[in-house]
């Protein structure tokens, strides 16, 4: 089962901490979006592996753009 992470707000991708294939844990910071002078961290919604990263640092994103897709670990079990 996969979980898609959407941008919660318009902004610029400030930092990407993971790459496809990386293992992540629930609530781990995987991206940061900069908007309105603030940095909003984006967290992994579940344990799993990064299947896809849809953005790179410096990209402009709109609310609900796909940021990343996580292969949920719980599904493997």
């Amino acid at each position, binding site marked *: 089962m996969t979980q898609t992470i959407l941008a919660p707000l*318009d902004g610029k991708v400030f930092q990407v901490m993971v790459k496809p294939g990386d293992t*992540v844990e629930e*609530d*781990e*910071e995987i991206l940061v979006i900069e908007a*309105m*002078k*603030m940095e909003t961290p984006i*967290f992994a919604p579940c344990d799993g592996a990064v299947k896809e990263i849809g953005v790179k640092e410096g990209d402009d994103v709109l609310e609900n753009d796909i940021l990343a897709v996580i292969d949920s670990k719980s599904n493997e079990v």
Partner: protein
Amino acid sequence: MRSYFEKMTTFGHALKKGRIKSTEANLAGIKKAEDEITEAVDRVKLAGFSEEKINARGQMTVWQRLEYLVDPGTWRPLHTLFNPMNNVEETTNVIDGIGKISGKWAVIIGFDNKVMAGAWLPGQSENILRVTDLAKRLNIPLVWLVNCSGAKLTEQEKFYANRRGAGTPFFRHAELEQMGIPVLAGIYGTNPAGGGYQSISPTILFAHKDCNMAVGGIGIVSGMAPKGAFDIEAAEEIIEKAKQFKAKPPGSVNVHYDETGFFRYVFEDETGVLDRIKEYMKDMPAYAPKFFRVADPKEPAFPVDDLYRLIPLNPKRVYDFEEVLARLVDAGEHMEFRPDYGPEVYAGLCKVDGFLMACVGNRQEYLGKNYPEYADYPGMGGKLYRQGLIKLNEFVTLCGRDRVPIIWFQDSSGLDVGDAAERAELLGLAQGLVYSIQQTDVPMMLLLLRKGTASAHYLMGGPTANRHNAFTIGTVASEIYVMHGETAAVATYSRRLVKEKEAGRPLEPIVEKMNQLAEEYHEKSRPLFCAKTGMIDEIVPMRDLRTYLVAFAGAAYQNPKSICPQHHLMLPRVIRG
């Protein structure tokens, strides 16, 4: 009112392993910064003569006296790094805080007898006035450990006179006494002139056998007839007089216990003085905590050490305020006021050590495209908008009505700006909040979690709420400035940049000035600067933050000047509906 307070709505979540993994660097950064603060505090503690040297003279240091006097585990220091006049001694030479003595909260202050035998130094009177204001705001006793050699004469022009100068604390002592707030004083060492008034102005004087207090000391008596200049003959005369008074300083216990009776008691040992103060504190008027508690005290639902992971050192990083609050209040329980209105601010009732406390804080997250409702741009936490200001005006007013002390948690970048914000009446609503705070006569404290910026710093219950704010504590993430340094550099130099560009001159010198200004802003907003200048009363390690909330709650409810019966409280009913 058990149904309201015994079990309130729970909030907050335990940290998950992913969050723990992501926040290792933040935790390390905060601890490193806290270590730097500890080093600065240690320099204050080690100022002047060593403990060994003072002990060899048969005296205890002020720190030893405090340790003996204050109930273990209850000392909450304030103003440790306060040094607004940049004294080379790195201290104002008084050590103060709140703590329990014989189970009762008191404001406690002592002269540092290691530094110039407890002399008056620049900035000290401002420090003392903050302390007397604290006793007044919390309506709790003020306990002095007097050991004051008088003015540092080479710098007297910096503190002797003026509206808030070294004589003003004596008026404050009188004011406290006239309000029914006792000032107890243990008297040690030599206390001439200013030290004499420091000794005589409290309510009850507990003297050590070797102490003295006097209108004037040896120095004044020896040199009180100016002759226009000094010569060798005059020097010899001074030596003779000084020897004479050194052998028998004026105002000893022989005079002020045996004759005037100003000293209520005299004790052979230094600890005897402190033991009698403890005995008197047992008899101080104070409600038992059960009189005002709304529930049994409980620890927070989650470890307070989580704060090292939840509060980002990076001032731009968004975080969840409720998760922070859940680590500070009892049992992770609350009653939130108007949760569907003014989402940029949290307002609610919580319990701290079983006492009902009002909590207000800036939320940090993105607020969505439909908020603020008056503008075509989205809102971001940390700012204040129309609804938030209205909500806080209402909440503060109800707190005043219900006599509930308020804890402000500030982390704000300011108010919304622009014509839309002006049309939405933000300026009037902001000053309206100032009005609401001013007319809400309950003790307040501020915990500056991170940013205190622009007028939001004024509005969120800070030191500018002078009569109401008991004290302000900060963290190593705290910073205070009118605006960010880079914003200030742009505001200052943008027109100059245009002129230089149009004149065909190089821009580098202006850019250099802009960077210099931004750097100065940074330096002058850091926690150490804020503590040194008094914008923050103490920089507190994250793990100790709750202990200050507990002290504030206990002190605020120890002997309140007015009370609201629990069954007459309106705020919980307004929240429940």
